[in-house]
């Protein structure tokens, strides 16, 4: 076990998988010469050459489209979106091409492609560089969506994503890149589709992922001091959702709170709440509560930006309300 940063963990994953399988290559804007804006590709070109670590023109539609083509031709491409907000520029490649090709071709081919998308609010990047857009892709059959909250899962999920034969969207919160955490040695894989109970508890289940996982754990400590024992679950994969882990927890706590940084209306919390309330109605002793951003674009000014971010305080208040 070693203590390394989130971005180092992703770098290790890339290096290991590229060494293990020469079909794996990575392309994106400013990844080779500059090593990625968060240093997450530093050193890769020196190790694998500029053919397998390619700087591209600023042409998101063409880059991702080329990725789809390379995957069809037997490669296992990793495409870096630079910012998750730019997915809108190549939305057709994601929604209508990579997600659908296998089904539309009747299973003739697989689509082993990973789209890496740094997302989330970081230091006043404003409305077009701070979004969390994962909910869109929960709605697109054919895609898998994974979101690590710590270095161990960052490495484990990226390796699993690269080895998956399905197209995987890998969202990595920009503010997490410098954070440190323990990462197991050796061929460490985190299974896609499996959540993790990060903190067992009896009174309430809190589901979260990515940055807000850390807010949830902070809140759990405060709540413990007030006699509320919160079970914290890190989804890690938001499509397909590990519904069994959720039901096992709910069968114990009977209270559910879902927390994410993305806009609340139509967020991942909506799908979980709707499905759990329909299928496990009898396990609920209280309404399922959700926390997410208000229905506004993300403001630039720090004075306003902090008002749209989910805080540990929000989680504590919602938990107290649920356990009244």
């Amino acid at each position, binding site marked *: 076990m070693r203590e390394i940063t989130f971005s180092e963990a992703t770098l290790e994953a890339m290096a290991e998988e590229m060494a293990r399988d020469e079909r794996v290559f990575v392309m994106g804007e400013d990844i080779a010469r500059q090593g990625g804006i968060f240093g997450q590709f530093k050193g890769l070109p020196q190790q694998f050459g500029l053919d397998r670590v390619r700087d591209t023109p600023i042409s998101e539609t063409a880059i991702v489209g080329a990725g789809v083509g390379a995957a069809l031709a037997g490669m296992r491409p990793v495409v870096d979106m630079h910012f998750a907000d730019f997915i809108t520029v190549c939305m057709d490649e994601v929604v209508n091409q990579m997600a659908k090709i296998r089904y539309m071709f009747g299973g003739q081919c697989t689509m082993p492609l990973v789209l890496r998308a740094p997302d989330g609010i970081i230091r006043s990047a404003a409305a077009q560089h701070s979004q969390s857009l994962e909910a869109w892709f929960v709605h697109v059959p054919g895609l898998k969506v994974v979101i690590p909250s710590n270095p161990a899962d960052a490495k484990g999920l990226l390796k699993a994503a690269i080895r998956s034969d399905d197209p995987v969207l890998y969202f990595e919160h920009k503010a997490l890149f410098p954070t440190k955490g323990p990462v197991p040695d050796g061929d460490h894989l985190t299974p896609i589709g499996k959540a993790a109970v990060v903190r067992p508890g009896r009174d309430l289940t809190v589901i979260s992922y990515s940055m807000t996982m850390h807010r949830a754990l902070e809140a759990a400590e405060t709540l413990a001091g007030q006699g509320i024992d919160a079970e914290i679950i890190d989804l890690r994969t938001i499509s397909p959702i590990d519904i069994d882990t959720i039901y096992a927890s709910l069968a114990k706590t009977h209270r559910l709170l879902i927390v994410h940084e993305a806009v609340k209306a139509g967020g991942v919390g909506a799908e979980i709440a709707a499905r759990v309330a329909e299928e496990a109605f009898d396990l609920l002793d209280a309404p399922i509560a959700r926390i997410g951003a208000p229905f506004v674009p993300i403001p630039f*000014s720090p004075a306003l930006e902090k008002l749209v971010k989910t805080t540990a305080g929000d989680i504590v208040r919602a938990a107290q309300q649920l356990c009244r």
Partner: protein
Amino acid sequence: MNARPYGCEDLLRFYREMLRIRLFDLKAAELFAQGRMAGNIHTYVGQEAVAVGACQALEPGDLITATHRGHGHCLAKGGRADTMMAELFGKATGYCRGKGGSMHIADLGLGILGANGIVGAGIPIAAGSALASKIKGGREITLAFFGDGAANEGVFHEALNMAAAWRLPVIFLCENNRYGVSVSIDRVTNTADIADRAKGYGIPGVVVDGNDILAVCEAVAAAAGRARRGEGPTLLEAKTYRHRGHYEGDPQSYKPAAEIAAWKERDPLDRLKKTILAAHPDAAAALAGIAAAVEAEIAAAVRFAEDSPYPEPATVTSDVYAADNERSVAR
């Protein structure tokens, strides 16, 4: 660069406008480095001749779309230094009431249709503005500033094609500063000049020395004339160079030192100053006066930004829709 038809008064005005941009962005970079601003900023230092040359050739009613490196475009189009600095500080008195920040400065009254955080996104928006002019039968034209990187976005090709097909009154001004963040243009294109792409859409493609303000001014004036005569769009490529990083704090390790030094030799401000003094040796005092006045303007802008209040928390949910009482799904 010879003074040609511009009188001393024009040349001094050009100089003042370029100096405003230079000092604004150097001060912004300084304040950013001290952590006095949020987010990040992309400064325009070194490319002033393109913005000023272009805007001086436009009429007040004309419009522009800017980019994430748009402080210079907006100041050159008549933007106020204090309101812009306040926006960079995220203050309520900023151009966008603190909600947009450096990459989204806009002043629709001045015809600034806004900077943009998505590379290339301003190009078709400018064409749309030109379409509006054509439909309304207005005299105004629209100019799109964009970089060499944006020239590789899909919308660049779509916008040029449509504008050409419908002879829209728009000027596509590519500021080729040789780098898309760290990637030099030659590594991601196969042509020496982006202007050559104009042939594909049957419109003029003109390369111009982006550091020669008079050359830029003439080229834009010619293109504006075509546009106003209904002869359609022009693709201009101004060869220029940014003295500082893609973003403030970028070490620019991807740039050879010799290249940086060479381009600093051809600094647009120095070249204009030489031209002025060659044609009007007695203008030295005027130049010094301009420098003092601009420094004062920038200092006042900083004070204004610092003294301005942050936006009220309640404003975080306003300006999403026209009528703020819209009971949207903001539950």
